[in-house]
């Protein structure tokens, strides 16, 4: 058996190689996504028609098309785009006539913040529900937990959002209906967005806990005299966290993508809204940058999740 090296140094060496490999894989995914989106968005239709007023003469339409480089074959357009992009120039938004990168970057923190808050909320509900459901398996608590989680999957997040606005902003007047600025502002959007994954996360925690609670080492812990509380919340939960962390990365990405509905309901100035509106108005540069940044976030969050395994599960530190 390998002797124990000091944890940080050994881990560092192995992780660097692994890390580099994953970053390379990530880069390939990102470039791939950018190509696909570039081609598909141009298939979706003609942005010029949307930009110019209806009575614009065809000559003007053609001229604008030429100016924007949209008359070139698509592959050529991509090369031009890629060339400029490597220099940091992602073009100007057709609609806003401002640099697309700036437009998207300015709104990105708001969406990331919202997605993180939603994720935190979902974990805050899923972990206790999942653990209690497992510990009191078959009981009323378990049934309630499952029912609650099912509700989460059945209710669409815009509906939850509107419901929250109705109850807490209009009727009870304890929370602001829209906008940003304080913790109170992020509460309802985070709940509306984080609602849906609670079901899946609860199920995962529950089944992981059930597995773990049945294990020999938990039995050993019990035999050694640990109280149920310590066994469940310290020794069992850490093991059950591993599958949960796996899907957290996926759900974070899902929340980034699904945020636009919640952003619209709560007038949250995020990137989701920006990109979706750009899709509808065929604002290709903004769509391109938006998708690019989102795919970078997605790849990064998955990478972080993978790296975090090493923190949670020491067995994994050495077998890359």
């Amino acid at each position, binding site marked *: *058996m390998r002797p124990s090296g000091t944890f940080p140094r050994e881990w560092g060496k192995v992780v660097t190689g692994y890390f580099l490999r994953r970053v390379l894989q990530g880069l390939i995914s990102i470039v791939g996504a950018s190509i696909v989106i570039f081609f598909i968005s141009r298939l979706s239709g003609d942005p010029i028609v949307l930009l110019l007023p209806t009575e614009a003469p065809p000559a003007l339409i053609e001229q604008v098309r030429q100016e924007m480089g949209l008359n070139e074959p698509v592959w050529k357009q991509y090369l031009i785009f890629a060339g400029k992009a490597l220099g940091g120039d992602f073009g100007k938004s057709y609609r806003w006539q401002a640099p697309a990168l700036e437009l998207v970057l300015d709104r990105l923190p708001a969406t990331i913040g919202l997605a993180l808050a939603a994720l935190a909320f979902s974990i805050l509900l899923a972990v206790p529900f999942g653990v209690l459901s497992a510990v009191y398996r078959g009981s009323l608590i378990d049934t309630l937990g499952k029912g609650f989680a099912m509700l989460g999957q059945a209710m669409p997040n815009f509906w939850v959002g509107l419901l929250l606005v109705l109850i807490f902003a209009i009727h009870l007047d304890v929370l602001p209906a829209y906008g940003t600025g304080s913790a109170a502002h992020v509460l309802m959007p985070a709940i509306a967005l984080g609602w849906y994954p609670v079901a899946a996360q609860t199920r995962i925690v529950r089944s992981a806990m059930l597995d773990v609670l049945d294990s*020999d*080492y938990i039995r050993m812990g*019990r*035999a*050694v*005299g640990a109280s149920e509380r310590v066994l469940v919340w310290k*020794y069992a939960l850490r*093991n059950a966290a591993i599958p949960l962390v796996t899907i957290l990365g996926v759900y974070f990405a899902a929340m980034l993508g699904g945020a636009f509905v919640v952003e619209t309901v709560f007038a949250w100035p995020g990137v989701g809204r920006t990109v979706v509106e750009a899709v509808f108005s065929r604002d290709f540069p903004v769509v391109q940058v938006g998708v690019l940044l989102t795919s970078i976030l997605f790849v990064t969050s998955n990478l972080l999740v993978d790296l975090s395994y090493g923190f949670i599960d020491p*067995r994994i530190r050495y077998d890359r």
Partner: protein
Amino acid sequence: MSRQALLRVENLRTHLFLKRGVLKAVDGVSLHVDEGETLGLVGESGSGKSMTSLSIMRLLPKQSGRIVDGNVWLDGTDLTSLPEDEMARDWRGRRVSMVSQDPMTSLNPVFTVGDQVGAPFRYHKLAQGARAVRDAVVKVLSRVRIPSPEKRLDNYPHQFSGGMRQRVVSAMAIACAPRLLIADEPTSNLDVTIQVQMIELFRELQRDSGLGIILITHDLGVAASICDRIAVMYAGRIVEVGDVRTMYRAAAHPYTQALLNSIPHLGQRKRRLYAIAGQPPSLIDPPVGCRFAPRCPRRTAKCDADYPPQVELAPGHVTACWHPGPGAVA
């Protein structure tokens, strides 16, 4: 009995309440263990030996298992009547502890060995403060002969070999200097050399501290080497009990004899190993008479009609059989 029995189990009945019915896993078991003595509890799987030990520790599955009758006296205290928090605080892992089957899975993979071995000290408040716990852990790890324990406190279970892990588990079990140690098939998954080491360790502990040990095993060879007495269980009941020599030389119950016959000997020239024909009876609906009868070479109508009473063949040698006596050696 002249010596005060460390452990006295009287008429223990443990039932498992399952969907398909009530399983009478332990159906009237009585035994005793003296200080410094090792009792071997032998039987095939499903005989109730693990359930007996779980009942003593009160570690039965919460939703389905329950001790429905009997008492378990340890040092004069009836463990079956204690409230759960007292049992956990003062007894389980402290005065009676357990080492279970598979060392590979008995340790929590995501916590350090230092944390896990320190756990019993923390729970039973035998060491206060991180420093004291650490010292106690190092001490007990050296006791189980783990080299350079102070360097390995931050290691994880997967960084230890199988044999080392078994020692770690044993360390957890003896950390609080228990009075009774229940070892449930502790050597079944280890190779022979490690088995020998484990056995030596247990004996040493026993010599030093008067520890009583119940060794649960299906391996009569291991039982012979370290047990003082052996109790044989079948279908939830003890069918024969006696000291080691008697059991191996003059076992009286047909089941015990069959078990002895199944041990392959070095130099044995047989094509097929002896196996006992048939299956143990259902414990949900056990038969009225002797439970081994269907598989017994000495079966008579009487055996099926009534359950045989306990018969003391010699001091300390008890069996429950209508036709006890030396059997044919196959």
